[in-house]
């Protein structure tokens, strides 16, 4: 086990495991949002439960750590990769058709995702969970997240920003998911195409799930009851 994380494969393992953890979280978060689409009351009940539950808090801390490691190692690996490419660049390059666009642009896509996360945390997590923990007054009540969502997404700029964010997330996950599986080594000649397909399906389910909620609130049809 010595110096696993100083090796190239060890560093990639960190990207892989934290990435898989983050996509699981996305799935969980998306399911929770769908609750808001159906019933404001049910969503508020979930918010209340998560805000006061120590397991949820511990989960948030682990999630934050996973996110931070994922970002740090993305930069560490990118810097090394740029150096490995050498100082002179090709004057003509043609990417083979089989190379996914997302796979070549993971860092940029990741940066857009981070910007979205910052915006999102400042509007939701800070005003709800953090405010409750820190006892900040005048914030939105953790028990009335539904009302806040309704107001927040009714602003067209916000809705558009979220859709752009989700598009970047979609591209990032289509490559990231199967890439994480490949890094763990759980792949072979047959499964390589299957995992890529599963990645696209997973990314589509998650991102469409998020987008439906954003758009539904933006045009005012949610919550349904």
């Amino acid at each position, binding site marked *: *086990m*010595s110096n*696993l994380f100083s*090796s*190239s*494969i*060890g*560093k*990639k*393992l960190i990207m892989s495991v934290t990435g898989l953890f983050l996509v699981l979280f996305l799935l969980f978060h998306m399911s929770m949002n769908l609750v808001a689409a159906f019933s404001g009351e049910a969503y508020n009940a979930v918010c209340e439960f998560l805000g006061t539950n120590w397991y949820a808090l511990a989960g948030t801390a682990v999630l934050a750590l996973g996110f931070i490691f994922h970002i740090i190692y993305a930069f560490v*690996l990118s810097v*090394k*990769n740029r*150096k*490995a*490419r*050498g*100082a*002179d*660049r*090709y*004057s*003509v*390059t*043609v*990417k*083979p*058709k*089989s*190379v*996914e666009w997302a*796979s*070549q642009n*993971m860092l940029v896509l990741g940066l857009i995702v981070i910007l979205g996360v910052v915006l999102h945390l400042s509007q939701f997590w800070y005003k709800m969970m953090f405010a409750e923990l820190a006892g900040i007054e005048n914030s939105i009540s953790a028990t009335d997240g539904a009302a806040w969502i309704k107001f927040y997404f009714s602003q067209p700029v916000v809705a558009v920003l979220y859709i752009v964010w989700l598009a970047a997330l979609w591209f990032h996950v289509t*490559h990231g998911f*199967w*890439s994480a599986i*490949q*890094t*763990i*080594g*759980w*792949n*072979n*000649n047959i499964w*390589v195409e299957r995992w890529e397909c599963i990645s696209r399906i997973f990314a589509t389910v998650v991102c469409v799930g998020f987008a439906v909620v954003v758009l539904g609130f933006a045009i005012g049809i949610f919550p349904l009851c």
Partner: protein
Amino acid sequence: MEKNITVTLRVWRQENPKAKGEFKEYKVSSTTDTSFLETLDILNEDLVAKGEEPITFDHDCREGICGMCSLYINGHPHGPATKATTCQLYMRRFKDGDVISVEPWRSAAFPVIKDLMVNRNAFDQIQQAGGYVSFNCGGAQDANALPIAKTDADLAMDAATCIGCGACVAACKNGSAMLFVSAKVSQFALLPQGRVEANRRALAMVAKMDELGFGNCTNTRACEAECPKGISIANIARLNREYLKAKFNS
């Protein structure tokens, strides 16, 4: 039918590893049935006749087996043909009047020696770190004395077709050598003779690869698409597996 063809080659010229290189254009007449390397030979003869320095490029077998030829031609390592080496590239791939750009492999671990020739000694060093079986396996055994599943034998053979040309590194935006190393690790890891030293081999070869400054694979699959031998990235998954297993066991 064989046709005459005149093309302009835009070739990277670089005096030595330290010198600043630049592109130079040369017009050369060839035929569609002439290979790309032969066309470079024709150009070199012209240059020598004119008293100019010929273009330095690597080649040896000229039949796709030794891995010596290289060249990044019109944006592709080994040129536009798939599953073929530069020495297997023919001028019929191009049109009369084409401008063809010819560059060396570009990667920090493969420094240019001169013109189009790069130093691929890093691959030899990785091989020397563990790409072999170090014990005596004895003479050829009786057939079927050591049963090996056909699927494993096929996968090992596929991995063993890697010719160590370095096109995977040249194609990779990260300058990663994972496809090469994975092929060299896989050809042994799949067979009983190679399993004995599998842990040591995976650890030593990856450590050497990291030390020599190759980049980290981000699974873009550009290597696999450009590899003249069609080495699959499934080998990279196997290498990851082998390496992690070896680390956890060590």
